């Protein structure tokens, strides 16, 4: 068991009324799964990913990651966990504009205080693997959207996470680029055993996953 959400409630209060973002949501994810989360806008896809990624909290319920209860963990400990095990991929790529492709991919290793020689080897492998060696000295704004997302994924993978959380990873890409990214995810999942949870609007993208969860108004709807 990689992670388990148990009766999670998350709400915001506006005008004295509670609006539920996550409503009694329970979910178990095994290592090696590839899950798509689908649902209309506002159904809570992003919120769910943020909660899983420990970027956001919740009001009620229990969250276990690798059998550790994390909702009452200290911030420091929690950030250590996600540094170690979780990689993020964003719809807007969120590369650091001032850094080259190489440096963007290298950044998580810097924060993990990996030695220089090892960093070099790891980043080199990653560039090879994604076929972007020739672009390593370019800055993000010199790349196409698909290429940027490749770098984003490479950056997420560099610290060898167990889990990749992808929030609409292909939302800004055309269908061809989008297919390539999905192929890559599938490959990562099958060959490297990386667990992937992606939020998506697209039926065809969702189909790459081994399991699809439909969200509606913050709850998993039985499909």
């Amino acid at each position: 068991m990689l992670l388990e959400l148990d009766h999670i409630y998350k709400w915001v209060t506006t005008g004295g009324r509670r609006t539920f973002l996550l409503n009694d949501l329970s979910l178990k994810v095994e290592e090696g799964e590839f899950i798509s989360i689908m649902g209309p806008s506002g159904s809570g896809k992003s919120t769910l990913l943020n909660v899983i990624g420990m970027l956001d909290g919740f009001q009620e319920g229990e969250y276990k990651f690798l059998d550790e209860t994390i909702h009452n963990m200290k911030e420091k400990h929690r950030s250590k966990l996600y540094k170690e095990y979780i990689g993020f991929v964003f719809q807007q790529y969120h590369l650091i504009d001032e850094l080259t492709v190489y440096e963007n991919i290298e950044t998580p290793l810097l924060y993990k205080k990996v030695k220089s020689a090892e960093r070099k080897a790891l980043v080199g492998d990653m560039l090879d693997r994604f076929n972007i060696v020739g672009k390593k000295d370019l800055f993000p704004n010199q790349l196409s959207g698909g290429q940027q997302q490749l770098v984003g994924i490479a950056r997420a993978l560099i610290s060898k996470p167990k889990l990749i959380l992808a929030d609409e990873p292909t939302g800004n890409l055309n269908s061809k680029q989008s297919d390539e990214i999905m192929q890559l995810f599938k490959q990562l999942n099958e060959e490297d055993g990386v667990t992937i949870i992606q939020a998506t609007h697209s039926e065809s993208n969702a189909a790459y996953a081994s399991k699809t969860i439909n969200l509606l108004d913050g709850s998993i709807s039985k499909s």
Partner: protein
Amino acid sequence: MFRNYIKLAWRKIKADKMFSILNILGLSIGLGITLLLFLFILHEESFDTMYSKKDRMARVLVHLTDDESPETWCGSPPAVGSTAKNTIPEIENTVRFYHYAFGQPASISVNDKNLIEPRFFYADESVIDIFDLEFTHGNPKTALARPNTIIISESSANRYFGNDNPIGKQLNLENYKDFEITGVFKDFPNNSTIDCNTIASFQSTNFAKNPTWDNASFETYIVLSKNADLASVEKKISKLVSQEVSDPWYSLSLQPFSKIHLYSSNYQDSYSARIGNIEEVKNLSLLAVLILVIACINYMNLITARSQKRHKDIGINKTLGASTKSIILRFYAETALITLISILFSIILAIVAVPLFNQITGISINYRNLFTLQFIASLIIIWVVTSLIAGSYPALHLSRLAPQVVVKSGFKSKTSGLLIRKGLVIFQFTASIILIIGVLVVYQQINFIKNRDLGFNPDKILAVSIGAAENKNSINSLKNKLQNSSNIVAVSSAQGFPGVDVSGRSIINPLTENGYNIKTNNADSEIIEVLNLKLLAGEKLPETKAKNDSIVDVILNKKAVDFLGISPEEAIGKKVQLSLGNNSYVKGVVDNFNYSSLREGIGAYAFHNNATREFHNYLLVKFRGNDIGGVIEEVKDNFEDFIPNSAFQYSFLDKNLERFYTSEKRMASIGLSFSILAVFIACLGLFGLAAFTAEQRSKEIGIRKVVGASVFKITKLLSLEFLFLVAISLVLAFPLAAWLMNSWLQNFAYRIDLNWIIFIVAGVIAIFIAIATVSFHAIKAALTNPVKSLKTE
């Protein structure tokens, strides 16, 4: 890791060129000013520190005790130095200085040239040892041992003789005395209070033969023996006066040598023109700190102005595993880099500005001091402190942002930081407005002084030095010759004139037997006409006076008559006691006039014709017409005819009076330049805040445009918010400025009232500058296509 921070910071600086330039510019100017003022302060503090015995040295001060207007003089009677040295064992040595003719420039002939020597001194032989004089020629052990010997400075030697060896040559003073040059010493450094071009042996003067306990005109320095206590020596010296003088009119104190430069601005009759003022040093230090703070605030404002982008950046880094600590370090690294670049620029700015600063202030600070170890150490401290202060807000505030800000699409940066930024802008503007008002008030006061009715007319009067004239007849002939010229209204010869020191005496009220300070000026009958004084009663001094006539005629001013408690008319013909002889009678009374700086009130003043006491040093020539060059030429030609062995030296009375206000003018010029820069830096801050607000409200502006707001309406909306900030600054600045400037004006006996127009002008300037700064962004934001700002959301 750290290298990575620096790399990132450098790329960020390059990526946003305009902001980086604004940032670096603001900080460089702020730091540059701070460096400049620091140099100035260092220069002031370095005064008189070069003498080996400085810690044991002190100057004797004379305090006038028994009258209603206390004064402190830097000169003391000649007997003090010699007696103290012989009777007080703790005193190792003393030296008395006498500035030739009580401070008048000396006319000398040397090497067949007639020259004016403004810094001609007599001093005891001990000056060589006490002031560590280094000789390039001659023997320091014996140089001043004999009467009629003189030592001259290296630069004077150069001026007189070029490269020739001056030892053994003759120097003639005012055609009556010859000195033998026995030594050449290295010039006094420019941060020494004592500064002599020539030093003649004190024994050459009559004062040395019979040192008296009056005539407090001799600056006296003492050197204590090691371990002696200044306070107990001071007591012993004071005791001397009561032992030696039957009815002392003064008391003595000792001023530690280290205090002489900065703490003597209220004392009179100093031989040195290099008088500092601790108040000025304090004010300028405050100004330096203020400008540095404004520049730091500015930096914070500009950095946080880009915070929207920063938020994203921080969020990404946090999801990639950055700790809060590493983000803080990153911001500090960035600030430190920008500060370092700014410091380098500011050093260049300071070096470029030093000559300008020297020109404005008349001080000679040296940029080479920037590279002393002490200064480099302070630079590093400034660097660290500025980086810490300027980096604190972005580092500490922004680093706390939670990582989810980046993934939450609906994120809006909170407004709490905005409040602080607004506060910072208000602070900057308040400070700037105070500076603007300050400068306006100082200028108005200077103008007021310039145009004030002084009670006499200083315009078109030429003061020609005649100290070297061999006899009175030649002066009279010159006077007569000039009086016949059509360009010349009147000519008078006198001991001094308003703006230069004359003699200080005491006038006694016969009823109460109280004394009162009075300035006395030995003058001829024409003085009233030349100065255009108003005669209230009686008549002017008689034109001629028999040589053996013991009657002294005196013209008092109104203030002196008031002290005597009688009307001007009653005073005429009365006998008056002001130590000018027993047969002194009031001949006339003139209205009060400002014979000194307007900082001081008018005291008692008298003209007299007692020829045995003081000499006529000046010929005052009142001329008409605007051909000043022609008049000078005419006077010079005649002067050389009648007084051939003397250099022609002149000054203008009105110019001479302006000299009183050099320190005010200096403050005003420094203040003006720095205020302009401070306002400029404050504008950079406002510019940054305006950019920030425009960026933050871009969505709101987009929506407003979509629903139909005009460009003008949006510009107004954005600008008004800032005008509100300026308005708050005005409200804060006005009372503060009023209070500050009122206390400054208290320094003047004659001063302007604070005028509400000044405040309005300052307010209008501030508002105008603010509008000009803000509207750039407001208009830019208003012109932006709303599609652009709305689609990114």
